[in-house]
Structure formats: C-alpha cells, structure tokens
C-alpha cells in the first residue's frame, strides 16, 4: 500500500515534469521493464487530462455564472416573456418576416414604377422614330421648296412634297420602296439618275413591313436592261459589309457600312441594324452586299444612335413580290436564283451598274 502511494506520487511528478534528470531516467527504465507501471502511467495521464479539462470547464462555468449574475435577468425576462397581447406577440414573432414583406412591397412598387417609366421611354422611342420618318418628309419638302423657289414656279405650286429612294424589281418598271414615303401622297413620281421623271402609281402596299410597290405608268419610259442585283435568301451575318445607294439629296449618295445587329428597332426581327449613316431621303434605298445581293431596304434609323440605320430584311421583298400577279412583273424580274451581275466587280463599277435601277421617289 505504502509502495503504491509512492509509485503514484512518482508517476504524477513524472507526468508533471517535476523529476530531475536522473530520477527521470531511472523511472523511464522502470517503465520499460515493468508493464504494470507503464499501464499506471498511461491511465494516470488520461486521468490527469480528464481532470484538467474538467477543471477548465468548471472554471469557465464559474466565470459564466459570475457574468450571468451581472445581468438583470428579471428585467429582461419581463420584457421578453410571451406578451399577453396577441398583436405584440405576433409582431415579435414575425418581426423579420414583416420586415421582409415590407421591403418586398417597397421593391415591387419601385420596380412597377420603373417598368412604367421604361415603357414610357419605349413609347417615346417609337414616337421619335416616327418623327424620323416625318423628318424625312419635312427635310425633303425643304429641298423641294428651295427648288420651287429657284425654278420660279412654272407649275402650280404644290404644298408638300416628300422624297425617298426606291429601286427596280423588274425591267418593266416595277419599283419597290418604303410605304411611309408615299403614304397619303396625291401623286407619285420617280426620277432616275439622268434626271428623267416618270409618273408612277402604287400597286401594292404592306403596312406591316413598311413596303410599297410602285409601277411606272409613263409612255416615255422604256424598259430597263436586266436587273444587275439579286435577292439574298439567307439572313446576313453581323459584320457583313453592305452599302446603300439613296437620294438624301438630288444626287445619288453612297453609304457604306456593315450589318451591326440581326434585329432592328427594339428587337424587331423583320429588320437588321446596319452601321451606315443615313439621312432623310435614304428610306427605301437598297442595301447590297459586296456580291451585289440585296440584303434589305433602308427604312429608318434609331433616334439616339449615331451612324446606325434599320433595314427591312430581304425576305420581305420576296414576300411583297409574291403578293402581286407574277405575270405582270415580266420575265426579267428581280430573283434570288440568278447570279448577281455585280459579283466580283469593284465598288465604283457596281455603283455604275446599279445607279440606273435606283430611283428617287417624289411624293406630292
């Protein structure tokens, strides 16, 4: 018994590192030789560790109790206890939910407001685009007015004249242009690059796609030679180089650029957006690619973007052409099947070839 106690004391001193080097060595030797001693050391080590954590936990608890005693538990409890009033209870319970709900309401109000706001903006866009169209007319009317002033009015003065561009879709005098150019006009004339004017009448209009087909009704008009350009069947890719010839003034003007977007005004899938700077009067002009394929028709431009225009996709030209009696167009009509006469030519040569087929539209 006595020995046991001494052994315990030595083990504890050993574990706590209180033995001197010599004793330490002696004890480690003993530990190696005697398994029971070794077992005692291990179990005591475990016991001491348990005791240590236990002691630490107790001290921590004591500390917590001490802190706890500083808190006014009664006071807190009375404010936090389930309130007799249901309303207050509900409020406490759902405080966060109510906050979330409130912020949701605020958020939705804000978004509703902004949606309304943005639709207002969209409408304004559309109105502005109309105004672009109007501008086309007023711009041209200005040109006319100046002309009338210069020409010291041989003719009885006509009030307003609008102008645009159109192009031949058959050799026998069918011309395609934008509907908005000729809308509401009393009489229509086209003028070719040589300055000759022919009277035309409207044969077909497609208000949805803003397309109109005119027919030259003039005995001075002689048939054109075969149409140099063809219609492109596929949709064009972004980046494709395109150009247009039009009459923003009395002479034909070339505008060159590229297809910049597959959709037009506010995602209008019937149109492309092209990076060509156009002016009032360019409306109705053909948009051609490098090989002389008709990609579209210039129809308008965004109000706030510089150097961009919208072009009606070429497949709607085909649609419009199908809508009129096929025989009347004659054999030499615009088609998608032939090879373009322009392909492989330089731009100057191409313009030379097509300028006889692009007309200025004059609406009075």
């Amino acid at each position, binding site marked *: 018994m006595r020995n046991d*106690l001494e052994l315990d004391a030595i083990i504890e001193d050993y574990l706590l590192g209180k033995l001197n080097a010599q004793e330490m060595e002696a004890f480690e030797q003993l530990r190696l030789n005697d398994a029971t001693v070794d077992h005692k050391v291990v179990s005591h080590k475990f016991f001491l560790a348990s005791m240590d954590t236990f002691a630490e936990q107790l001290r921590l608890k004591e500390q*917590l109790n001490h*802190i706890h005693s500083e808190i006014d538990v009664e006071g807190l409890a009375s404010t*936090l*206890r389930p309130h007799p009033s249901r309303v207050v209870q509900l409020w406490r319970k759902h*405080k966060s939910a109510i906050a979330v709900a409130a912020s949701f309401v605020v958020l939705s109000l804000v978004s509703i407001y902004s949606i309304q706001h943005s639709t207002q903006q969209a409408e304004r866009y559309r109105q502005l685009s109309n105004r672009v169209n109007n501008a086309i007319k007023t711009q041209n009317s200005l040109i006319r007015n100046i002309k009338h002033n210069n020409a010291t009015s041989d003719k009885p003065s006509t009030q307003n004249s609008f102008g645009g561009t159109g192009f031949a879709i058959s050799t026998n005098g069918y011309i395609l242009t934008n509907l908005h150019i000729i809308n509401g006009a009393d009489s229509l004339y086209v003028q070719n690059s040589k300055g000759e004017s022919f009277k035309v009448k409207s044969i077909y209009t497609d208000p949805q796609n803003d397309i109109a087909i005119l027919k030259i009704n003039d005995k001075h008009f002689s048939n054109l030679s075969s149409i140099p350009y063809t219609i492109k069947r596929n949709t064009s890719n972004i980046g494709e180089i395109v150009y247009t010839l039009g009459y923003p003034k009395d002479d034909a003007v070339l505008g060159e650029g590229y297809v910049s977007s597959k959709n037009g005004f506010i995602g209008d899938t019937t149109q492309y957006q092209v990076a060509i700077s156009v002016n009032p009067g360019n409306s109705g002009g053909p948009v051609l690619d490098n090989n002389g394929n008709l990609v579209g028709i210039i129809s308008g431009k965004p109000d706030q973007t510089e150097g961009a225009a919208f072009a009606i996709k070429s497949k709607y030209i085909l649609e419009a052409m199908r809508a009129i009696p096929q025989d009347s167009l004659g054999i030499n009509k615009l088609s998608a099947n032939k090879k373009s006469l322009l392909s492989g030519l330089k731009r100057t040569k191409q313009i030379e070839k097509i300028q006889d087929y692009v007309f200025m539209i004059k609406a009075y």
Partner: protein
Amino acid sequence: MNNSLKSSVPTDREVILGILNNSEDTLNKLYKAYYAMVLQFILNNNGDEDDAKDVYQEGIIILYNKIKAGNFELSSKLKTYIYSVCRRIWLKKLSLNSKKAGNITDYEDVFAVEEDVENHEEKDASFAKMQSALDHLGEPCKTIIQDFYIHNLSMQDICEKFGYTNTDNAKTQKYKCLQRLKKIFFQP
C-alpha cells in the same frame, strides 16, 4: 430588447481573437450580447429563466471550446451560430422531458449544428462522470482533490487548510484520495 446590452455587441472577429487570448472582458461582452436573444427564445418555448441560463451557458461553452480547439470557421454570424446551438440543445431537452415541442417559435435564422452539439454531449458525459466520482469520494477527499487539481492550491496551502502536521502527511492523504477517485472514475 435592452439597448444597453445591444450596444456593446462585440464583432465576431473580436470575440474569436478575445477567446483565443483568454480575454475575460471579451467573454463578458459575448455573454451579455446574446443572452437576451436566447432568453427570449426559451421563455417563448415552454422554458423559464433557469432553463435559459443552462442552455445559454452550454451554448457559450460549445462555442468557446470550438474556438479554443482552433477549428472554428466562421461560416455564419456568431449570433446565428449561438442561436442554432441553443435552439438545438433546448429542443433536445424538451423532447427528453417529453414536453410539447411541436410549435417552436423562432426568432433568428437557424443552421445545422447537430455535430457540434453531439460532440459536446459526449464531453459533457465524461465531465458528469468525473463530477459523480468526486461526489462519491466524500469529505475531506473531495475538497482536497478539488483544491489541488481545480483550484490549483499548493500542498502547503492544503496542509494548512486541513490542519495536517506536515506536507508529507497531506501528500499521503492526497494520494490516498486520488487512488480512490481513480478507482471510482475508471469503474466501467
């Protein structure tokens, strides 16, 4: 809620650093910062102030040990962690006492802390074992052991406190007590 308590809420980083550095002040602040939250939860879920104290202290101890162990990763706010732990403990207690726990009134977000709570319960069991071993020891052994191992008194102090004639006698007494305690503690 009590504003003076709320205003002194330490940041989560402060708490972790403070606990790692054994700062009593941090522990104090931490304890006071979130007590009201747990008290409210317990009071509104079939508990009283004493329950709240027990549960909250257990929760704080779990957090404390986790931080001390060095493997605490702040994946949420401490507030959420403490709330989740306390909630878990309280739900367990409720089901143990087969009290009604059907409709728990929550005040904060909760996330899964089952593992931490269970780890703590294991530890707690070993503490309970130690405690009951001490309780079975009887006087004066219990006090001698507590004084030496828990309150870190020297043998000299113990010798004087218990009126032993010399420290050797006190030591012998201590080892006798220790032997008995170990016997009880290691009993299966």
